[in-house]
């Protein structure tokens, strides 16, 4: 049972444009959501997170939107840069439980 899903295996975007990565979840008890970026041969790097009491969180070029009724979150990167090319994972957790449940990842390629 895949509780967190990223239905797009890959996304290709031109430099300077917006990248939108999507994530759906099925467990309505999840109350904390995170995005990670992963380069080959490295561990995941934390990007941004959002609590279920919010619907938007912004950090520089990165914005995460949460739609609880649709059980959907998205990561917007504006403007996209070639250095953003990596695999992006969304993850979800239950408060104070610790376990992160990850999606399958989306490969983002930003072309110069």
């Amino acid at each position, binding site marked *: 049972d895949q509780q967190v899903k990223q239905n797009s295996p890959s996304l290709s975007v031109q430099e300077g444009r917006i990248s939108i990565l999507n994530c759906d979840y099925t467990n309505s008890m999840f109350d904390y959501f995170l995005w990670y970026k992963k380069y080959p041969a490295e*561990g995941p790097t934390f990007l941004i*997170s959002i609590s279920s009491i919010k619907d938007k969180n912004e950090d520089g070029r990165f914005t995460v939107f949460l739609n609880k009724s649709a059980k959907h979150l998205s990561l917007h990167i504006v403007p996209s840069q070639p250095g953003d090319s990596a695999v992006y994972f969304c993850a979800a*957790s239950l408060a*104070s439980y610790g*376990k*992160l*449940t*990850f999606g*399958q990842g989306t490969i983002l390629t930003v072309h110069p």
Partner: protein
Amino acid sequence: SAVISQKPSRDICQRGTSLTIQCQVDSQVTMMFWYRQQPGQSLTLIATANQGSEATYESGFVIDKFPISRPNLTFSTLTVSNMSPEDSSIYLCSVEGGDQGLGRDGDTQYFGPGTRLTVL
């Protein structure tokens, strides 16, 4: 800022042998986690390791196969026992941020660089 390191970074092992992976954090943390990423797959939690207590294993993972030690608040080991080719994966440790000084929120986890294991 705190640093999470893992040893070894990669290894190639023979079927039936065991490998112990080390995770070191340069600040004290309460909870440490071990994840696995099989080829082409997502990250899956193996177990949670708290200092002074037995590790808590997720469904599908057992202590005999993946024994874990947590001798203090900065160190943990994961052993992959009696390995088979299906154990070929990247193994990652993570710690929670927040009060431990690593991050902006207590529920955020920060990952080490991973150990790439290939079993022949």
